[in-house]
């Protein structure tokens, strides 16, 4: 498979501080890679390096002609700047009407085109940012804690939208996420970052890795149990979505939910009690 991104021995310094050191990273076409790590681990810095927003040492090879879509962390909007969604998507380069339309549709944000950015809710604005990232039909979509500031429902629906996008565009996704249940369920590969890469591999492998467990202070069973549980569920119920069931596993007591006609993805439970 082709590598979209190959970083070798990548380091980033700011003043005296070493934010990232000796990072080796590959992203292959079509895969979902998630970066997890504590605050200040350099997750955002790594993504910003890939889009060319930070200087670095080492080598960074991008596939020639690689198109990247970037969705930043929830960004502060200056309320005094009047800007419609349409205008925002046309900045800094005027785009084809058709591309804008397709991108908005892919991000489920078509109805927002005439709105002013400052009037959008958090979830709507994230969808607009996603649309913006999709305009040039990226081969690699980079998401930096894209659901920060959204509630669980909003985050869930955002990630579902991402899944749809990946299926239609076939792009690779590199994302930072704090929502471990999403990470564990949806990633091909997880990279555990804390200034350097502590461990990486399949979600299973990382979750059971001592370096990961130490970083997150999880008792080893919970994240994995959650993942497994979710996985089992998928298999158990994949042919019976429509019945109603109530979970009452030990670590989801606060989150007993009644699933009606929802898809099995909704079995994931928010991890806020653990994290």
């Amino acid at each position, binding site marked *: 498979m082709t590598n979209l991104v190959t970083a070798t021995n990548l380091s980033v310094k700011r003043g005296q501080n070493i934010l990232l050191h000796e990072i080796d990273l590959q992203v292959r076409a079509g895969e979902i890679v998630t970066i997890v790590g504590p605050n200040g681990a350099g997750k955002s810095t790594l993504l910003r390096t890939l889009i060319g927003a930070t200087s670095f040492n080492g080598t960074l090879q991008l596939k020639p002609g690689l198109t990247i*879509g970037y969705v*930043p962390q929830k960004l502060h909007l*200056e309320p*005094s700047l*009047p*800007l*419609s969604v349409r*205008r925002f998507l046309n900045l*800094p380069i005027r785009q084809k009407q058709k591309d804008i339309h397709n991108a908005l549709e892919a991000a489920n944000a078509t109805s927002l085109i005439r709105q002013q950015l400052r009037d959008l809710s958090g979830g709507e604005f994230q969808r607009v940012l996603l649309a913006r990232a999709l305009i040039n039909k990226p081969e690699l979509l980079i998401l930096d804690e894209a659901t920060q500031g959204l509630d669980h429902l909003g985050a869930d629906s955002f990630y579902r939208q991402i899944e749809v996008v990946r299926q239609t565009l076939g792009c690779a996704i590199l994302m930072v996420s704090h929502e471990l249940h999403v990470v564990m369920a949806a990633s091909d590969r997880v990279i555990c970052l804390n200034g350097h890469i502590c461990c990486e591999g399949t979600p299973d492998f990382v979750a059971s890795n001592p370096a990961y467990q130490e970083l997150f202070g999880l008792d080893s069973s919970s994240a994995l149990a959650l993942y497994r549980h979710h996985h089992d569920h998928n298999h158990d119920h994949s042919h019976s979505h429509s019945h109603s069931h109530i979970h009452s596993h030990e670590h989801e007591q606060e989150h007993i939910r009644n699933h009606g006609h929802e898809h099995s993805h909704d079995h994931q439970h928010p991890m806020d009690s653990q994290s």
Partner: protein
Amino acid sequence: MIAMLDDFFIRAVLAGIGVAIIAAPLGCFVIWRRMAYFGDATAHASILGVALALSFSTSVFLGALIIALMMAISISVLSGRGYAMDTLLGVMSHSALAVGLVVASLLTGLRIDLMAYLFGDILAVGKDDLFIIICGAAIIAAFIYWRWSALLVSTLNSDLAAAAGVNAKREQLLLNIALAVIVAMAIKIVGILLIAAMLIIPAATVRLFSHTPEQMAIFAAGVGIVSVIGGMNASYQLDLPAGPAIICVAASLFIISNLMRLMTDMHSAR
């Protein structure tokens, strides 16, 4: 037409309009990027330029421009390296102001009319001043037209800009330079103390009525032009200082626009 320029009043109005037109879009960026203090600090620092220009008997515009550019460039280079921008501005502008005042006090041979530089001396705009202002305005207008989209996207977010291939740091530097130029140009018009007002008040006045960034810039230019003409007329008829009169008109327009907005809001709420 050229003979008209012999009239000091016409020259003053034209110079004022030239500055107002380019102050409008730059003022919008000042508001959007929350750099209100930048205009003020750069203007204060340019006192040093004025004092140095007088002591070397060169053009005041040139002296002010050089100091303002030095401020703008060093702020851009130094910011993000351990000091917040307003800290750097505070240190540099007040140091430059203090040195400027000391230099001015050493100029015993000359009696400097400091008031003229603090509050502007628009009625004393000569043909060469007018020429400088018109050329400067044209250059800055062309610059803004050229960089408009890139400046807008870097104003929104530097990472989004980077993802779109725009270097936000460079755009910031270019904007700072443009602001330094307008500060140097506006000293003659409204004076050092009121330059920031010339940048901010017109843009703030039209903020609530604008739906696009372009609209805001154009409306602000309109408010600026009305303020210059109104202020100049008030100054002529009531014998008021021209620079402050211009800003007073702009401030009145700001108040009126907010009252209008308040009334329409109340009306629609009912």
